[in-house]
């Protein structure tokens, strides 16, 4: 009976936590949906589709992320919110200086071009995250 009492105590907390997570998901879904409908985001979408390779475009359309091979041979996964160094197994982050006004697709395209053409230069400015 003790475990039953413990579960009864945990349930309200779990419900609260799940509600909080659900609210965050709904907020992101709404914001992402609105942002994607703004003209700048649509321009950036058109631009990145022109500049990706056929394989990258396929992955971008399916998963919203794509892989690039750096000019020095490193492999990276570029996603809307992060870059994963697939060889080192952690995340890195660099952005164009005016990143705060750019649509996310523009930032992803800038990252692709930087890594594919000047991997060393991009890594020199990039923050390395411990995960």
């Amino acid at each position, binding site marked *: 009976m003790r475990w039953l009492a413990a579960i009864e105590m945990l349930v309200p907390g779990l419900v609260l936590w799940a509600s909080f997570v659900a609210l965050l998901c709904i907020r992101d879904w709404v914001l992402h949906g609105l942002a994607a409908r703004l003209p700048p985001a649509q321009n950036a979408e058109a631009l990145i589709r022109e500049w990706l390779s056929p394989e990258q475009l396929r992955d971008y359309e399916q998963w919203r992320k794509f892989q690039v091979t750096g000019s020095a041979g490193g492999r990276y996964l570029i996603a809307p919110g992060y870059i994963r160094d697939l060889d080192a197994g952690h995340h890195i982050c660099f*952005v164009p200086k005016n990143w705060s006004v750019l649509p996310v697709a523009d930032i992803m395209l800038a990252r692709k071009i*930087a890594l594919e053409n000047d991997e060393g230069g991009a890594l020199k400015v990039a923050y390395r995250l411990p995960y």
Partner: protein
Amino acid sequence: MKLYTHIVMDAHGDTRHTFNPDSEVEVREAMKRFDELLKTHVAARRLGEGRTELVRSFSPADEEVLFFRKLVGG
């Protein structure tokens, strides 16, 4: 007549500046814009099939050049 384009990433997604490669005046203006942008931006040309190349000097033969602000750790 085919117009060539400088594409600058900005808050609008991008802003496009076109010029006629056969017009001496427009090419001169494009070169001036290129040099000005290169002070704060990275420039790249599209080679096709997703391949790109960084550009460090103006060439009137580049049909399409993309500019994005220099990179910082984010």
